[in-house]
Every structure is written in structure tokens, then in C-alpha cells.
């Protein structure tokens, strides 16, 4: 989920298990959503996006689900691997391209 305060929430996952990372977005008028992955010392990397006219979108080992009724976005990672350890955060965009709003992120730690 999204953090309140200075410390990121942490999701600890065993290697091989599935991960689910959640994001509550703020604006019901937002119409485009993105998940980013940020490894330590690197910039955010695009993972997957979804438009508001969709409920689900699948990529390679990742699935994004969008529930507009409760303004909730989730990222599912199948068969989590050590390389998936990172901070994951969502972004919502309302209308024009300049209006990105980012969540604070969730730290995913993959344990052997």
C-alpha cells in the first residue's frame, strides 16, 4: 500500500511466490496509470501501464488491475525473483501529460 510518513511499507516475499502491491489513487478523474520499479541507486523504470477504460492488463510476469469504483490499482508479479527486489510505485495521470501524481512506493524484498 501507499506510505504515510517517512518509512516505506515493505512487502517481504519468498522467491517463487506471487507478489501483490497495492496503490490507492487520489483522483477519480485520472485516466491513465503506470507502475514503475526503482532499484537502489537507479531511476524509476517503466513496468506496465493501463488506461481507465480497462480493468486488467498483462505483461511478462506482471499484471495490473484497476478498480475505479474504489480508486485502487494493484500490481501482481508472478513467481517473484531476487531481481524483483526494488521499490515499486504507481503514478496516475489526469488529463494532460504534465499532471502526473506519484505514490510514495512499496519496498519489495525477495527472500530465498
Amino acid at each position: 500500500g501507499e506510505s504515510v510518513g517517512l518509512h516505506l511499507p515493505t512487502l517481504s516475499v519468498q522467491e517463487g511466490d506471487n507478489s501483490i502491491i497495492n496503490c490507492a489513487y487520489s483522483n477519480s478523474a485520472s485516466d491513465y496509470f503506470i507502475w514503475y520499479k526503482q532499484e537502489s541507486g537507479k531511476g524509476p523504470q517503466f513496468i506496465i501501464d493501463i488506461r481507465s477504460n480497462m480493468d486488467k492488463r498483462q505483461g511478462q510476469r506482471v499484471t495490473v488491475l484497476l478498480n475505479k469504483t474504489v480508486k485502487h490499482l494493484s500490481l501482481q508479479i508472478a513467481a517473484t525473483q531476487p531481481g524483483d527486489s526494488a521499490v515499486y510505485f504507481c503514478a496516475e495521470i489526469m488529463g494532460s501529460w504534465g499532471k502526473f501524481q506519484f505514490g510514495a512506493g512499496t519496498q519489495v524484498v525477495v527472500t530465498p
Partner: protein
Amino acid sequence: DVKVTQSSRYLVKRTGEKVFLECVQDMDHENMFWYRQDPGLGLRLIYFSYDVKMKEKGDIPEGYSVSREKKERFSLILESASTNQTSMYLCASIMTGRDSPLHFGNGTRLTVT
């Protein structure tokens, strides 16, 4: 693949110094952005530019200015660095049009002492 390059990965500056952070993108994107990233606060927009010599204030522009003299380059300037500007700075670019993700550089970690 889009490449957004930030010239420095780490910088240490003293209070009161003028600091330049440089960013270059190679995809001919019209739009470029500067964010700062602090633990627990997410990304906050400092300035953005939608064309050469054009700039718009973001959510936290105080203490910063920007320069966009060429399409591929967007510079962030700290006129007089202060300790509360110690942060990770991220540059990003995006093509004009709807429903495109921002492409980020690897960030510059600035420490002001």
C-alpha cells in the same frame, strides 16, 4: 529505447554554492521534467518544459530555476544551495500526446553540507 542521461550520479556542494544539474535525452521529446525524490514523500515536480526556452513551475519551484536552450537538454539550477535541498533529483522526458509514460534518468544524489 529512450535514454535520459543525468551528468552526475553524486554531488556534494556547500551551502550557498550555485549548483547545476544537467539532463540530456536522445529521443527528440518535446517535454522534460525535473523532480525531487525524498523518502516517504514520493516524487515532487519542481519544473517542467514543453518546448525550447519554455518553462513552467511545478509544485515546489522555490529555490530552483531551469534552462532549456536546446531541445535535448534541460538544466536545473540551485541559485544558492541550502541543506534542505539535499535530495535525489530525477530528470524525465515524454513525447507529446496522451497516455505515454515518463522516461527517467538514473538520478543525481545531491548532498548540501
